[in-house]
């Protein structure tokens, strides 16, 4: 069972209170982009064993989207943070580094 702290409500929300919304920090490629970029934006997703960044929605609660950093292998949650950002806050990165030295994910490490 996965329990994530909603950064808006401050409550520890059970997985069944939430809805998974896929990979976090996607860069949108819309009109004007190449076919390859658009293809990758639509279909290419990371599927790591280990550190992962995801979007979640507190669907039975406040209804807001937020981001979560967690380990897909152990379900350890490194933290949750606002979705209004382009990269994870330094505090989250530091927490991950302490638990998983040498981690990398996309452009982040």
């Amino acid at each position: 069972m996965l329990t994530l702290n909603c950064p808006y409500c401050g409550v520890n929300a059970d997985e069944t209170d939430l809805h998974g919304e896929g990979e976090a920090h996607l860069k949108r490629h819309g009109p004007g982009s190449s076919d390859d970029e658009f293809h990758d934006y639509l279909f290419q997703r990371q599927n790591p064993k280990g550190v992962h960044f995801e979007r979640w929605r507190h669907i039975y609660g406040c209804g807001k989207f937020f981001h979560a950093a967690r380990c897909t292998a152990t379900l350890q949650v490194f933290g949750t943070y606002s979705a209004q950002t382009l990269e994870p806050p330094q505090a989250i990165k530091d927490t991950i580094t302490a638990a998983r030295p040498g981690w990398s994910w996309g452009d982040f490490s």
Partner: protein
Amino acid sequence: MSNAVSALQGAVAPGEVTVREGGLQGMITLRGDLSHAKLKSACKAVTGAAFPAVGQATMNGDNALAWMSPDEILILVPHTDTAAAIAKIDKALKGQHYLAENLSDARALIFVEGTYSREVMAKLAPVDLHPSTFQPGDFRRTRLGQVAAAFWMKDDDTFAVICFRSVADYTFKSLAAAAKGGAVGHF
């Protein structure tokens, strides 16, 4: 105009923990910038209750204010006063970016009353309802069984539950069944 009728017309499931439909209840959803002083004072003016903090509900008799999300407040007033309360809010927030809408008849209000009402709620909601973490004044939006709901504690033995009108029957029967099942003795 037709008369307003509550979803379950005052149904009661008596027992050690009684599940009772609350009847007609005026509910206004107010969306906007919750940090705005005018919005806060308008909420206070129509209910007499203090403006709630994150995850809290404040009460003044049968009136209440509840924190629904970072940009939404639920206002409870008597059913007959709903239109007047919205008019008051509209006047106070004129020119602001906000939404005040009467949702009284879209929802149902159910009370769960009795010594182990806490356990009845805990059977249906994925929420830590231990007395050390959930107390009168705390407000939570979550699910009850399979449907969305919100609840808060009026006092140590009473929960107030709000759900959509279309699932009022399901919510009422689920709560009544959980109450009939008896205490667990966990808390």
